[in-house]
């Protein structure tokens, strides 16, 4: 990417939220809060899952989009979060609410530790190293030493929580609101992180590591920490996913899932925070659309949709929105 491009991007990330963006966010939030009144529980379940995937993709976005480190292994952190939640709830009888932070912290530690040796690897080599994580995860979950904890191939069935305090909500509605709240908190934190001094350091490492080092950024520390934070997000997403689906099994976290997260990242917009949510929706709904078009050629249809998406929105959904907003602003200015 050219330097001017990079500058523009970091400006965009650093700058205050533009007015139309604030407006858009508020409208989206109001719609999101009112939605459960209008749609079926099944659709709410899908949206809840899409939001969980969105959080995982945001984690990946922090790592890949803002810090320039590739990962094809985020299914492993998702699995770690999911299993942490499932084991805490099923084996130890701990309330689901507490599983979220614990799943995040466990993933953070693992992510940080994995990030340390991974520092030596760049670009495609790092992608390959993380890919090995994704490939190993399902087998590790089935392995004998871990079986008493993970339940082996059978996985763990957990019980869906009901709404607390006697709220008049179905458990799907409650989980939807809970996940929405987590999304708001996590996305706000991510936006603040990127707009901070730390965020600028992350972006500087991505764009020009030598210059960043010259300016006194501790590259190793920042990179490993980013890995940890990214895993933190993905782990929490995994815990949410497990609670919503009520079941974890090794077959849920194959490398195909890691690739799906990566697809969501690219389609949503690699360095966009809001784009991650779009990515989550894409990951969940587009395979269904493809299957509706043709059962026999679902894979091919999915591929075509993906190519079209990349062709129409070369910088992801977020890039498209950005482009439209700036065009509209320009037209207004010339009037």
């Amino acid at each position, binding site marked *: 990417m050219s330097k001017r491009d990079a500058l523009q991007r970091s400006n965009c990330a650093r700058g205050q939220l533009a007015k139309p963006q604030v407006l858009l966010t508020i409208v989206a939030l109001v719609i999101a809060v009112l939605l459960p009144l209008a749609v*079926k*529980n*099944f*659709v709410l*379940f*899908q949206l809840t*899952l899409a939001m969980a995937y969105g959080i995982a993709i945001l984690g990946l976005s922090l790592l890949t989009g803002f810090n320039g480190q590739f990962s094809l292994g985020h299914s492993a952190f998702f699995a770690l979060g999911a299993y942490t939640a499932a084991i805490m709830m099923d084996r130890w009888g701990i309330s689901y609410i507490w599983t979220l932070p614990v799943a995040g912290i466990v993933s953070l530690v693992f992510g940080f530790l994995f990030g340390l040796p991974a520092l030596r690897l760049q670009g495609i080599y790092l992608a390959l190293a993380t890919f090995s994580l994704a490939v190993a995860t399902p*087998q590790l979950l*089935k*392995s*004998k030493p871990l079986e008493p904890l993970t339940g*082996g*191939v*059978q*996985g763990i*069935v957990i*019980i869906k929580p009901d709404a607390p305090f006697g709220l008049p909500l179905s458990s799907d509605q409650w989980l939807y609101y809970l996940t929405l709240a987590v999304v708001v908190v996590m996305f706000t934190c991510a936006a603040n992180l990127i707009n901070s001094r730390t965020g600028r350091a992350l972006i500087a490492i991505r764009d020009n590591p030598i210059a960043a080092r010259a300016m006194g950024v501790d590259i190793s520390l920042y990179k490993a920490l980013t890995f940890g934070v990214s895993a933190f997000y993905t782990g929490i997403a995994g815990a949410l*996913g497990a609670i919503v*689906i*009520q*079941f*974890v*099994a*090794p*077959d*849920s976290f*194959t490398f*195909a*899932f890691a690739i799906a997260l990566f697809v969501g990242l690219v389609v949503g917009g690699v360095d966009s925070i809001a784009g991650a949510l779009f990515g989550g929706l894409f990951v*969940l709904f587009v395979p269904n659309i493809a*299957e509706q078009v043709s*059962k*026999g050629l*679902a*894979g091919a249809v999915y591929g075509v949709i993906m190519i079209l998406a990349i062709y129409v929105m070369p910088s992801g959904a977020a890039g498209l929105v950005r482009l439209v907003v700036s065009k509209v602003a320009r037209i207004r200015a010339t009037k």
Partner: protein
Amino acid sequence: MRGLRLLTVTALSLALGTSAALAQKKYGPGVTDKEIKIGNINPYSGPASGYGQIGRTIAAYFNKVNAEGGINGRKINFISYDDSYSPPKTVEQARKLVESDEVLLIFQSLGTPTNTAIHKYMNAKKVPQLFVATGATKWGDPKHYHWTMGWQPNYQSEGRIYAKYLLAKHPNAKIGILYQNDDYGKDYVKGLKDGLGAKAAKMIVSEQPYETSDPTVDSQMVNLKASGANVFYNVTTPKFAAQAIKKAAEIGWHPVHLLNNVSNSVGGVLKKAGFENAKGILSTLYLKDPTDPAWKDDAAYKEWVAFMDKYFPQGDKTSSFPVYGYTVAQTLVQVLKQCGDNLTRENVMKQAANLKSLKLPMPLPGIVINTSPTDYYPIEQMQIVQFDGKTWRPTGPIMSGELGGS
């Protein structure tokens, strides 16, 4: 002859059905005067997509049923979704079928982890999870899971059949067991031990587990030979089954060899192990093997071929999957016929648990389907077969491994 039998079964069931719903029509979700909505989840993509043929066969069979006028005048609207064998996707698709498409029941969802993922949901929602496509024993637990029922012989039943065979033919056998160390393998071992009863401890001289992550089972095979066993109970998945058969020949161990049904594919396992090494091995079957020349002139086989040619021409006529799909679809048709005009979810389960000596065309002659409110295992009979170097040959009678109302 057979036509007459079918006719009487149908007439009988119609009579039963209509008397049960004499007064009025009662419909559950997904049923109208014109159609019955049936949901299904199959892996059409992903690692287990080979099984997708089963879903396609079932769809083709329902097309045939509809072309011939449907069931009691109602057409089957078969809605089948892909889950890629991924449990989260199974949950999503099951919820879509139940809450959005509003099907009467979910039929033949495939896979053990995938069905486990929706087990509680289906029972909480009181939607039939009927004739699931997995051999695990846990699907026949009507006390705790009233709405879930298996179909194929479960692993424990098969284990009991081997036990019966051994007690009859080799009462003083010394048995060596090789098994995969997971629920599937343990189910088989439990079935054998239960079947042997008090003699199990004396007869079993060695148990060797292996992990799916092991590269080979060579060391286990050497241990088994050294244990002095003269019967080999081989509970392995296809890759390991081929290895074990080969290794036994290499080290010159020639016991009575019992190979589990999971791995008795001639093309997929025995060919790889070498036909000369596999000669004489015993296993079990419950459906007619479409590659067995013995069925060439069998009326039921010909009817199946005609069905395949007309409704599923792209299907593989040498594979057992279309035979399986055809037979399980016929079982559901029988249940729906028995329901008559009382097509509620409750009555579907009642009729599914009320199959009495149901004979279908493609199971081996003598095998019947039986269920009751306490017996949720439709097929529990199999026949011991022996490999003659080319194909499986039936030896001995149809045997039952009934678990009863557990």
